């Protein structure tokens, strides 16, 4: 580690210690459940793993292995240790496997999540039909938090350990295989899977898996076939098993394959078939006939989607044609489950869609995609910084980031101008006049993304950074050109470009390279002819203009190759036409030098979908210069989730974790509860509550408070055996069991509590009056084991500062995660001085930091808050200060008046499904509705940036207010709670996805050429450095280069139109309108999919729900499975009503019908709607009293 890095961490840690001291003092004074800070600081991952598992010796062994190998390999090595008994004290083979599997999951999740304990129930040995023994692993729901990779690896580790301890493989019975398929489908329907394998896929996996996957039932719905199987305990869906099967094995097959190939003991040859999607051959039942009718445009073919993720042989399937250009196969998976209001930006591989360009912008990282901010606006503002998009490749989803050093979209305006828009101002100016979006612009993806997804490199767009290297390779002194102030290599004039190309024999500059590959050879010939008939006019200031006759063919050809021009009623004008004309094989005098017969057979037949649909070879034969394919890869995308930057409130929001039952009304208003009396004879404010009883060991007083109201001593929980009512004290392990009755004792009881008194006392204690806040909201009841309420004083101060608490006592703010590795003071709304104060001394080039627009490399634990988060943090800081002063009797800690004062303060970053918080430091602010931080910081929280969101908490808030005692007593209750904190990030101990991020400042020419070969990303790992390469070196925290800069990390719309548009209808109208405008989108398909995946399921689901719904009392909220025969509520006599009404069932009916009609959907879809509409009528209309139309009266 470099000295400056060490200094950085020491700064953070001393700041943390300072805060800890204050918090510890406060806690000793207060009335909290525990008199100390409840979030321990963890030293390293090994510690966390051992603590979570409770297996001695693991930490030591983990530390030993860590230096030598990856965590996956360490998990396998530990499996060996468990097998030979050198780690863990297990007698049985089942125990050894269990230990190995749990350890593997803990290791792969960095000891951060609860999955290793809660997600794996047990491992047992069962018997095959031939009498041999096999391993059965029981998974539970919380295995979800381990993520697909760890889930999949846990199966591999189980198998490996199985092989080592000498057990046989599992031979699935036919009915078990079928059961897996049905069950995974059922679980997907009921709960939803991130990835839904087809039945064939599940069956294929089940058939070949060498261990049995089992688990506890998680849902109520039962399978209808394959019930009561001998080796399956339940007829319900086993959620944990389904997750491991679908999101683990099926989804992460390529990752597992990396490791199976390294192990001799086990062999999973079938993985290749799974990855390739060739398992259909294995299933005799898969009908060939079905494939025959798949020509309906969207190619919803089954296996191809899985297959092409790794398809590195582009010419397979095109054997009958002469070789064409390298192309990826279209994949339609990302279009599945299209939702109304979330538009498609490009159909798979569609012309006019986003063009794949390689590079890493400074705000790029894992699972992000760079889009020009002008594109964001042109796409009707649906994309904003942080908006999630579902994408065709290389991954499944990505968070959108603004990058303005790539190309923007090209549009045709109503006035006939076809312009490329590379400027946000211009985009805003022309957006209302856009008729057609001919090209969506470039789409920047970094190399690491392909590594992470193990996806073959897709052919790269021809871009300046490649061209420069071509120029260099051709022997040009590029440095001299770069140094020449008269030359702009990015944006050179046309004459210059031709000169370079001719003189140096390098390909034509990308700026003047048009998308010839989308033009057919015939159209190319026609265009050459039309241009040779054109004339050149003096265009005045702009130089000469090429004028062509306006014909449909010419216009279409020009739009296809996406060249800027102007369409006038009688003519078409092209500026900067020289390179264009030369590419057509014409002389500068528009003289044609070739005819189509002169072209070689190869050039005439060159094509992707059919012979001669790609003119690039023809161009190269007739042009005097070499011309590369401009955009060989288009990436299909659609909108996923919108970005997020919002305070996290429980629903309804809670200020204090103090129970008030029903007495506070639906608002849970503590003040109301303080006045509530059920009958006239009750004392107002005295409410019967289920609450934990405590006793004062000093004076024997019984109370629910953490400090004795009599003598101010701390109290202890007062456990009692529910059977014999004798007092029970917890044993060393914290278990409370009655020795006599052998049942668990409890301290929870129903007690009358004077809420009014508690409320008044609390107000008095903090010296606040009721008018300090609008409303103080409590909770209905407590869900924790001991039901310890929070001191109400905290709630009063929260209410005063308008912050609310999460279930664990902390105040949180959620933001979409985005990465950034270098920042400018100017874009963070901070000064150079502030950055210097945080230890930033020089910029990325090593120059002293003096200007606000110098780029500095971000330190790993520094984070950028969104404006909303900053605002909320300031409120929280005010709350904390009041809390310290008015409740704990200490000095204020933050004293923040201006948000600039937040800079340098520590926060906790904390992701859902994890149990560990990571300490971060505020460095600045952004207007984007996202949380920018170093990719390693996100990875430490086990997040990637594909639209994931998580929260920040103010450090002191976590230290003072978090308590384990508040956490719900149920499976998963300990998730999303800071059970431990990591004070410093060790890059080796974070989610290894971040290690695949590339850190170079330029990709070499060989890389771009490798993309044309569709090489495996591993083939070029030696020429592009990724973060993994610096792990464990002095440079592990630094040297994150980027290939593309961006002016500001917040550009484009502040919020996605999805969030600013009002109703679902508005959103959907905008979605379909955009589909119409986009060249790369088929609006009929969009309409079809919205109906198929959104409206129809909604209608069908609601209609089904209607006819089997439960009902609810409007007065007391009591639910009834069926309408009570009493008609009124059996509990309170109140009015009972339906929970699903006609209005909610048919709200989309008419819209769906209209959309189907307007966008020309298939008859099949229309008829489905028709049948549904009739069903609705039949259910909701009285046959004898039909609504009559005007016709009835005529």
């Amino acid at each position, binding site marked *: 580690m470099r000295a400056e890095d060490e200094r950085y961490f020491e700064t953070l840690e001393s700041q943390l210690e300072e805060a800890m001291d204050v918090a510890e003092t406060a806690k000793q004074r207060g009335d909290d459940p525990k008199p100390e800070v409840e979030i321990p600081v963890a030293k390293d991952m090994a510690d966390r793993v051992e603590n979570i598992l409770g297996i001695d010796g693991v930490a030591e062994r983990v530390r030993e292995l860590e230096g030598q190998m990856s965590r996956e390999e360490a998990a396998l090595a530990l499996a060996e240790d468990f097998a030979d008994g050198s780690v863990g004290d297990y007698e049985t083979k089942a125990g050894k496997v269990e230990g190995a599997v749990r350890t593997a999951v803990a290791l792969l999740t960095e000891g951060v999540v609860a999955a290793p304990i809660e997600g794996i129930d047990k491992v047992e040995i069962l018997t095959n039909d031939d009498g041999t023994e096999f391993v059965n692993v029981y998974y539970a729901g919380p295995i979800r938090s381990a993520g697909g990779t760890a889930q999949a690896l846990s199966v591999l580790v189980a198998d490996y350990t199985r092989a080592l301890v000498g057990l046989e493989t599992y031979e699935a019975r036919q009915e078990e295989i079928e059961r897996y398929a*049905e069950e995974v489908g059922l679980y997907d329907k009921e709960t939803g899977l991130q990835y839904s394998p087809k*039945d064939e896929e599940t069956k294929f996996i089940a058939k070949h898996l060498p261990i049995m996957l089992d688990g506890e039932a998680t849902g109520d719905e039962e399978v209808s076939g394959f019930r009561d199987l001998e080796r399956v305990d339940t007829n319900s869906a086993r959620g944990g098993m389904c997750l491991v099967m679908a999101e683990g094995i099926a989804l992460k097959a390529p990752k597992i394959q990396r490791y199976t190939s390294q192990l001799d003991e086990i062999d999973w040859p079938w993985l290749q078939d799974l990855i390739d999607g060739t398992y259909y051959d294995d299933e005799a039942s898969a009908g060939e006939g*079905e494939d025959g009718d798949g020509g309906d445009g969207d190619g919803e073919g089954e296996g191809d989607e899985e297959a092409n993720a790794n398809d590195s042989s582009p010419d397979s399937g095109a054997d009958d044609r002469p070789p064409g250009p390298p192309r990826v196969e279209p994949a339609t998976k990302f279009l599945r489950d299209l939702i109304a209001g979330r538009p498609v930006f490009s159909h798979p591989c569609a012309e006019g869609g986003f063009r794949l360009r390689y590079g890493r912008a400074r705000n790029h990282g894992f699972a992000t995609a760079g889009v020009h901010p002008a594109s964001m606006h042109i796409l009707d503002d649906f994309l904003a910084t942080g908006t999630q998009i579902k994408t065709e490749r290389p991954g499944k989803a990505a968070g959108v980031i603004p990058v303005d050093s790539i190309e923007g979209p090209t549009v045709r305006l109503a006035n006939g101008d076809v312009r490329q828009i590379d400027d946000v101002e211009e985009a805003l100016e022309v957006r209302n006049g856009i008729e057609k979006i001919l090209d969506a612009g470039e789409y920047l993806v970094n190399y690491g993304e392909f590594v992470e997804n193990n996806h073959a490199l897709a052919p790269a767009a021809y871009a300046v950074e490649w061209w420069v290297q071509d120029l260099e390779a051709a022997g040009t002194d590029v440095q001299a050109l770069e140094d020449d102030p008269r030359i702009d290599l990015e944006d050179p004039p046309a004459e210059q470009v031709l000169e370079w190309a001719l003189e140096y024999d390098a390909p034509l500059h990308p700026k003047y390279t048009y998308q010839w590959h989308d033009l057919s050879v015939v159209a190319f010939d026609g265009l050459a002819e039309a241009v040779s008939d054109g004339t050149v006019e003096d265009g005045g200031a702009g130089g000469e203009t090429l004028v062509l006759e306006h014909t449909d063919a010419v216009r279409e050809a020009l739009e296809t190759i996406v060249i800027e021009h102007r369409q006038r009623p009688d003519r078409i004008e092209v500026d900067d036409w020289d390179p264009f004309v030369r590419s057509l094989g014409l002389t500068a005098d528009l003289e044609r030098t070739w005819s189509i017969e002169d072209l070689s057979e190869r050039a005439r037949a060159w094509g992707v979908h059919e012979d001669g649909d790609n003119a690039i070879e023809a161009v190269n034969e007739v042009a005097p210069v070499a011309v590369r394919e401009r955009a060989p890869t288009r990436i299909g995308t659609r909108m996923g989730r919108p970005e997020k930057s919002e305070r996290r409130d429980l629903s309804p929001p809670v200020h204090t974790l103090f129970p008030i039952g029903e007495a506070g009304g639906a608002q849970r208003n503590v003040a109301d509860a303080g006045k509530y009396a059920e009958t006239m004879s009750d004392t107002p404010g005295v409410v019967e509550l289920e609450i934990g009883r405590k006793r004062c060991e000093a004076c024997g007083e019984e109370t629910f408070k953490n400090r004795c109201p009599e003598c101010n001593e701390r109290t202890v929980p007062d456990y009692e055996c529910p059977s014999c009512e004798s007092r029970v004290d917890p044993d060393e392990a914290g278990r409370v069991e009655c020795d006599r009755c052998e049942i668990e004792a409890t301290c929870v009881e129903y007690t009358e509590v004077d809420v009014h008194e508690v409320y008044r006392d609390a107000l008095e204690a903090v010296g606040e009056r009721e008018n300090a806040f609008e409303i103080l909201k409590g909770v209905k009841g407590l869900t924790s084991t001991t039901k310890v309420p929070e001191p109400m004083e905290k709630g009063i101060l929260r209410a005063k500062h308008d912050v609310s608490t999460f279930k664990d006592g902390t105040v949180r703010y959620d933001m979409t995660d985005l990465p950034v590795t270098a920042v400018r003071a100017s874009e963070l709304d901070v000064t150079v001085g502030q950055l210097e104060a945080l230890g930033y001394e020089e910029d990325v080039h090593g120059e002293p930091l003096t200007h606000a627009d110098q780029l500095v490399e971000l330190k790993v634990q520094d984070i950028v808050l969104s404006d909303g988060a900053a605002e909320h943090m300031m409120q929280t800081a005010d709350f904390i200060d009041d809390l310290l002063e008015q409740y704990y009797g200490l000095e204020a800690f933050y004293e923040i008046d201006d948000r600039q004062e937040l800079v340098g303060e520590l926060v906790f970053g904390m992701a859902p499904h994890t149990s560990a918080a990571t300490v971060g430091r505020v460095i600045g602010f952004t207007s984007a509705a996202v949380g920018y931080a170093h990719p390693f910081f996100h990875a430490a929280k086990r997040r990637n940036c594909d639209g994931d969101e998580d929260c920040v908490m103010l450090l002191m808030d976590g230290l003072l207010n978090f308590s384990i005692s508040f956490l719900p007593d149920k499976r998963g209750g300990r998730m999303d709670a800071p059970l431990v904190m990591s004070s410093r990030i060790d890059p080796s101990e974070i989610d290894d996805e971040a290690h695949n991020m590339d850190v170079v400042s330029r990709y070499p020419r060989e890389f771009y050429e490798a993309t044309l070969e569709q090489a495996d990303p591993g083939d070029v790992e030696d020429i592009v450095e990724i973060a993994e390469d610096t792990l464990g070196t002095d440079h592990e925290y630094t040297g994150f280069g980027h290939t593309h800069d961006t002016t500001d990390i917040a550009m484009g719309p502040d919020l996605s139109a999805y969030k600013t548009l009002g109703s679902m209808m508005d959103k959907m109208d905008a979605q379909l309108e955009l589909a119409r405008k986009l060249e790369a989108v088929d609006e009929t398909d969009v309409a079809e999919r919205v109906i198929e995946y959104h409206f129809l399921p909604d209608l069908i689901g609601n209609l089904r729900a209607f*006819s089997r719904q439960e009902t609810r009392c409007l007065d007391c909220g009591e639910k009834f*499975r069926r309408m009570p025969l009493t008609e009124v509520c059996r509990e309170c006599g109140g009015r009972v009503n339906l929970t699903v009404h006609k209005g909610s069932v048919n709200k989309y009916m008419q819209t769906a019908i209209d959309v189907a009609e307007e966008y020309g959907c298939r008859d*099949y879809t229309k008829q489905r709607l028709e*049948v549904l509409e*009739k069903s609705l009528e039949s259910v909701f*209309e009285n046959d004898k009293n039909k609504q009559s139309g005007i016709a009835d009266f005529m």
Partner: protein
Amino acid sequence: MPLEGPARIVSELTSRGYNADREAVTLIATADDPAGVLERAIDAAPENALVLRTEDVRTVLDAQTDTQPAATEPTSARQDPPVSTGTSPDASPQGEGSTPVETGGSPAPRTPLDPSRQSIDVANDMTGQSTGTGEYEDFVAVFRDRLERLGGKLRGRVNHRPATAIQAMPGGGEVGMVGLVNDIRSTASGHWLIELEDATGTFPWLVMKDRDYADLVDELLCDEVLAMEGTLSDDAGIAFVDSMYFPDVPRTHQPSTADRHVQAALISDVHVGSQEFMHDAWNRFTDWLHTEDAQHVEYLLIAGDMVEGVGIYPNQDEELDIIDIYDQYERFSEYLKQVPGDLEIVMIPGNHDAVRLAEPQPGFDENLREIMTAHDAQIVSNPAMVTVEGVSVLMYHGVSLDEVIAELPAEKASYDDPHKAMYHLLKKRHVAPQFGGHTRLAPEEKDHLIIDEVPDIFHTGHVHKLGFGKYHNVLAINSGCWQAQTDFQKSVNIDPDSGYAPIVDLDTLEVTVQKFA
């Protein structure tokens, strides 16, 4: 009287009360078998039609082409010497066999039936009677009606008291109650707690695990009507069950039978439009109906799922042979026309049909009826009570069977013995008791799903399994289907009984099964 050219055809038609399009006459005259085509064209013509249309004849001719391969097709089986060599129909005006039955063959065709002896009566068709508008009160009315009517069958058997009255009683006494099952729970000690509900409230009944009635608990479904008798606990908070009564079919039930030897074919689940629809089996079935062997089959009852439908499950279009729903019914209608015209047909919709899924399902709308007018079948609601020559047949599609089979232990109800699942519905006197599960309910002013009168035959389909048997002398038949095993069925381990037609002797209620697949 041989048909010799257009004039004779017109005269024959006139004698039967029809005018005809000129082209229709030409078509008949030029057909291979003018007499047969004329017969069938008249059958195919819409009811009340005065004019025989060209389309009517075309459909008949088309259908004939469809069924040509079937060797037993009556028209081709008939040996008519005059036309045996005539490849050009125009050249053989000299005539034909006089009536379809004149000449024998192998197998022999059936004799036309005497329609005057046929009788069909439908008791409770709710088509066009759906008055519910989906309000809360509609639901309440349905369940109250259920308690009222089924409870009425039980009140005589126990000394019943309303729930609120029982709550107010002192502990220890004997007590009886009639109500809907509101909840079934097992207690920590393995006993069963059954909550009965009536119009006043609920009361919990405890079935001790070692009592006789404990066995019955696992065949209970929520919302069925029960009567219980027992002893109140000391605190009167609960009653211990001594006896339990179902509305049930009386053991002494004596079914009605037809006065003559006449048969009905009971089928269901035709699924026309599915790639798995077994048209060969269907053709063999309808061919058979034309033979002497089927002479006594005068009725055809179809218990739902005429067609495969659209949008029944995701991506269904990939497995459809006919994607257009109306084309599916057109084709079904064609297939129906192969059935001899003198058979009386009654059909109800099922869950694949283009009507609402929620039960009761009204019969098809005008549009679909229009498509299926060819055979003049009666289309009624699901469920419906159809009385055929005095024998009452309760036709119900059978969606609730899935639920009965899922909820009850395998030995009491399974897909292999679908009729045993039907016994439970008879015992509960309700075709779909449980609310909130698989079965969907459309609230109407009364509960159309009650089995008010005991039927002589209970006919269902849906589960694609053939099974029949008698429960308290009621014949329960689950007809198989005309669809081969689908991928979905394979995935859930259902092996359908395809291509069977159970034939019931209406005079004896004996069943014979004809197999056509």
